[in-house]
């Protein structure tokens, strides 16, 4: 019994990290039709940048701010100067973002070496808590709560604000949105920055439990893709539900079938594809 509760919580907290990653991937695709393969790099670099700040200053909060800001700057530069030139050209975009995935992964290897690192937990959540007879790391509970707050905020931005309305207009029909005087070009940069921010946030927040290590970029990219395949591209709800599904499956898979862990996410992905090719909440 105890075991099931603990593993479920582990799965949910990992699912929340995947949600952070996949929501950005999904938002960017929804508006810009870019499949950002460098999204895994944003996660990885976010984690490493957070690590540096925590090591230098000891402050996790500062690490979150500095790391996400750094990655947002990288993302904005990428979008403004390079991706923009390749608007709606799928193959060149794929090559470009893949190139960045390579460059950043090698850069991280050059700077931080090949040993896995762990970001120290924030002081406040360094202990385990006892709830109803269970002992559980408070940091993981914090991640679950934090993920929910981010989900609500994103929801509010999308459905309750002017910017959100503009983004939805851009998603539905870019040309008409432009003709209505919406600055779609600025929206592109904003959404790409938001996506980079969310991925970097996932990297810093995930640093204490998942660690940062070479190859994490490819690993989370794959999981992020599986999340949006299951949840549907361009849907926040899909990223959240998909994130939780993949987080739980991945966690239980690793516990029960360590050699075939990935198979536990393969089967439901295949099932969803067979029934709903565009994912649970994706549009045709």
């Amino acid at each position, binding site marked *: 019994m105890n075991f099931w509760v603990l593993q479920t919580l582990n799965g949910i907290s990992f699912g929340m990290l995947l949600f952070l990653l996949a929501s950005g991937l999904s938002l960017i695709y929804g508006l810009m039709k870019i499949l950002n393969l460098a999204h895994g790099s944003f996660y990885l670099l976010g984690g490493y940048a957070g690590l540096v700040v925590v090591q230098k200053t000891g402050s996790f909060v500062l690490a979150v701010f500095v790391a996400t800001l750094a990655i947002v700057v990288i993302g904005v530069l990428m979008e403004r100067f390079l991706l923009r030139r390749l608007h709606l050209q799928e*193959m*060149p975009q794929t090559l470009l973002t893949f*190139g960045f995935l390579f460059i950043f*992964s090698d850069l991280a290897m050059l700077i931080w070496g090949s040993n896995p690192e762990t970001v120290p937990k924030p002081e406040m959540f360094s202990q385990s808590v006892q709830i109803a007879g269970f002992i559980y790391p408070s940091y993981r509970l914090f991640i679950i709560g934090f993920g929910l707050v981010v989900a609500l905020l994103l929801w509010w931005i999308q459905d309750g604000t002017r910017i959100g309305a503009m983004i939805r207009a851009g998603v539905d029909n870019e040309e008409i949105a432009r003709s209505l005087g919406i600055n779609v070009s600025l929206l592109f940069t904003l959404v790409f920055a938001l996506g980079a921010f969310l991925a970097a946030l996932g990297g810093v927040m995930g640093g204490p439990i998942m660690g940062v290590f070479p190859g994490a970029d*490819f690993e989370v990219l794959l999981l992020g893709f599986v999340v949006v*395949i299951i949840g549907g591209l361009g849907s926040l709800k899909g990223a959240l539900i998909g994130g939780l599904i993949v987080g739980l499956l991945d966690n239980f898979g690793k516990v029960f079938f360590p050699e075939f862990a990935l198979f536990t996410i393969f089967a439901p992905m295949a099932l969803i594809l067979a029934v709903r090719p565009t994912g649970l909440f994706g549009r045709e």
Partner: protein
Amino acid sequence: MITGSSYSRWIFMALIAGVILLLVLPKILAPYYLGLAVKMMIFALFAMSLDLLIGFTGMASLGHAAYFGLSAYATGLLALKLGWNVWLALPAGLIMSGLAAVLFGLLALRTRGSYFLMITLALSQLMWGIAFGWRSLTGGDDGLPNVPRPDLGIGLSMADGVNFYYFVLLIAAIAAVLMVRIVASPFGYALRGIRESETRMLALGYNVWLYKFSIFVMAALFAGLAGVLYVYYNRFVSPDYIHVARSAEVLLMVILGGAGTLIGPAFGAAIIVLFENLISAYTERWVMLMGFIYLIVALFAPNGIAGLIRDYRDKRASS
């Protein structure tokens, strides 16, 4: 000005020269460079197989290494553990790739565009995960060393570099001719029709799904053939064979050479293999350098070398 017919005569002569060059290459090159030439041919075959999907049918797969790697594992394991000779191990490798393509094709072909790209990537990475995790069978990260060179059973030693070169050349040439025949056939023209407009082909009464499924499996078989040759060449197979980095690498070869031309991706493969060989000899940062190659191709040669030549010709013709 070059007229159409004299242009095709030039191409024909270049082709003859190329064939002669390939035949006499072992007389010219030192063993090390002959080995490099073998690697180029294998990747040319691999890149051409992906071109069938990307260039001719408009299906952007980012998981083509799955078929390359699965056949390499199947052939490698059967040759290594059961001592199967090439007559058995090669078809077994192809069957492995073909079966995977049937299964993955059924799934991936439910979608198109970016979904197709993501799904092919995800499926191939799952295969990578299995190759990586199933240590008792695949050796995990360490891979499977000491795969024997192919045994033809006719007294020709494939440990000899020149013999092995001709073995790969023969197989790659047969495969290349087959692929050229495929794209030049009515079937191949239907594929181009699907690339341009699926709905129009549907309206014309074509079973679009079946065409896409067929070429998906064929492309996987050719990729699988390249994988079998590569495991015999390297005498080693590891999860890297299946990794998305390899899928991206072959995509780069296709785009660099020029998608939809077959010969372009073959040249693209030769250039990338040569380039990787050069930079990995001089710097440890070759992954980063390759990353920049991706950026450069994406930004400046999205239609590849074939596209650049076409642009140049158009400019000459119009001026």
